[in-house]
């Protein structure tokens, strides 16, 4: 029997429905999450199964309902808060950073905030500057939060289930462009621990550390490189916090050449931290500086030919790899 395949969106939905069946405290709220099932239809069917008391449409009040999520989590629920586009996280920063992230510590460990925020990242949907950002670096910077960046249907299911069971505020970013991507997802229940990187492909000549949909880009680049005799290892940290430094550094020490690829802005973003960690941990083994590739430092333009220039692609990543390996 062939392995079962699900789309990324189906895997998200399955994780949620399994957890909602398992634990009656889990509930979902956000804009257009109920009958509409979100604009991406990721949540279709959930309100029908779990009812309007557990899947709730909210007003367009990101700050307000994020705060409601924090309080609900403190008082015994397991809310999954839906922020339609990652760009709207700007409105939730106070509740996520000054409240959710700090409650446990500030209360001396007495209160907990077991809440999950699900949101999106990623450009190239021709949605322009306010619907295309990848702002996960901000959250990775804040102690008290955990940050999850799944790159496959398998990963998103297991990581989301872990997020819901975690006792801390967790934010999970889904690349909108991946919702229709298919991949194997076993029927049996599983979870994936945080802080464990996944080597998505082994290789010897160069390490490509990539996050979220950039993992797919990296895998595509690795395929291109293979044809030219360059063997690329693709490492997916899966969570930027906690971060599995060890796996990253070991791969870097093995291959001695590293590219880090992330769809957030290149400057002061995730690539900086990953590059700094690797440059420090593999200092004596690197043959070349770690190459960073992120979104171009511009607001994402609408115009397709411009937008396509702003994010790393299989072509630009493989070209960078070739250069690093001295083969271009």
């Amino acid at each position: 029997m062939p392995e079962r395949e699900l789309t990324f969106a189906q895997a998200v939905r399955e994780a949620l429905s399994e957890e909602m069946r398992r634990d009656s405290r889990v509930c979902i709220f956000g804009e257009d999450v109920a009958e509409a099932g979100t604009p991406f239809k990721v949540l279709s069917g959930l309100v029908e199964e779990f009812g309007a008391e557990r899947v709730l449409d909210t007003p367009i009040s990101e700050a307000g309902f994020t705060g409601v999520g924090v309080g609900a989590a403190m008082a015994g629920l397991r809310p999954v808060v839906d922020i339609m586009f990652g760009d709207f996280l700007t409105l939730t920063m106070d509740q996520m950073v000054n409240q959710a992230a700090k409650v446990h510590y500030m209360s001396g460990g007495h209160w907990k905030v077991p809440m999950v925020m699900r949101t999106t990242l990623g450009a190239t949907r021709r949605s322009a500057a306010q619907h295309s950002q990848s702002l996960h670096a901000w959250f990775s910077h804040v102690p008290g939060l955990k940050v999850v960046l799944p790159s496959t249907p398998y990963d998103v299911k297991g990581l989301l289930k872990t997020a819901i069971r975690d006792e801390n505020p967790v934010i999970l970013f889904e690349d909108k462009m991946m919702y229709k991507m298919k991949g194997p997802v076993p029927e049996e229940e599983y979870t994936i621990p945080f802080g464990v990187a996944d080597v998505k492909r082994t290789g010897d000549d160069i390490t490509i550390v990539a996050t979220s949909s950039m993992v797919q880009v990296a895998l595509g680049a690795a395929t291109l490189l293979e044809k030219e005799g360059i063997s690329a290892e693709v490492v997916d940290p899966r969570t930027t916090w906690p971060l599995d430094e060890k796996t990253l550094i070991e791969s870097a020490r093995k291959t001695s050449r590293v590219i880090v690829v992330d769809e957030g802005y290149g400057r002061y973003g995730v690539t900086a931290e990953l590059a700094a960690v690797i440059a420090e941990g593999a200092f004596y083994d690197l043959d070349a500086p770690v190459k960073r590739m992120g979104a171009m430092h511009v607001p994402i333009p609408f115009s397709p030919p411009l937008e396509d220039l702003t994010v790393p692609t299989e072509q630009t990543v493989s070209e960078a790899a070739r250069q690093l390996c001295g083969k271009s």
Partner: protein
Amino acid sequence: MTTTTSKHDTGREVSSAKEKWLRAYRQMVRIRLFEEQVNELYTRALMPGLAHLYSGEEAVAVGICEALRIDDYITSTHRGHGHCLAKGATPDRMFAELLGKEAGYCRGKGGSMHIADPATGNLGANAIVGGSVGIATGAAFAAKRLGTGCVAVCFFGEGALGQGSLYEVMNLAQLWKLPVIYVCENNLYNEYTHYSETTAGDILGRATAFGIEAASVDGQDVRKVNDLATRFIERARAGGGPAFVQANTYRYSGHHVGDINREYYRSKQEEQQWKTERDPIKLLSKWLIAESYADSAQLEGVHSDVHAEMEAAVKFAVAAPYPAPEEVDQDVYA
């Protein structure tokens, strides 16, 4: 580029009622036919991304903007084509923007949700619900400080009533007596959810609580909208402070061009009823004829003029070149 609108930018110069309402009629038709072309471009897969059509709501933008000066400010929304045209933009550069072309209002960098134009006081459409309430209020603050006599109109959907920043700036506007008009276009839906599920209590009360004068108006009747707008705008210009308008209206199409199957959130019958009984263009056409300001042939003439204008504008935009790749990192900083 077409120049059809440049002669009557402000509405202030129009001498007679007849001229005034014929002009409003034409402006509404321009918006309607613009949006038809947008849908067409989408269906023909010529437009990148999505767009949110304003069809059905024309009387609001036109009723308000016809009461404004060319140098008055507006801020607009994701559903912004109507505001933009009503404030004086030309369709050719708008279409070019929707297609991501260099000739667009934003050189292709903004797209449908970000059209902006200093020449017509358009501070920009905004893809963040409620994102422009501060901007409009700030423009009013600047107008007051600089003594320009300008007024700012802040357009938003009733969904933006969910955003707290609206209340923050209404409080400020009233404290500082700023010349800003908050225009809530209540088209009954926040995306796919009826506004009654997201909006507790009383909409006007949300402004009057701050001491702001507020009124509801039939948003399908351009004359009523314009009357109310004129009163509020002149009051604001004279230093009387902010005002709030609830314009009751309806969007004919989906939330965006791709929202085709809508039955799970509203009935076809409801849509049909608004289109047949409360269409702003039909309502004004009836009145124009009843007042003998026009006959149906004349009005049909407006439609075919405008149709030609739009077709030419689309043609211009389709043929226009994309920005050069080097533009990608230009204008990040001034």
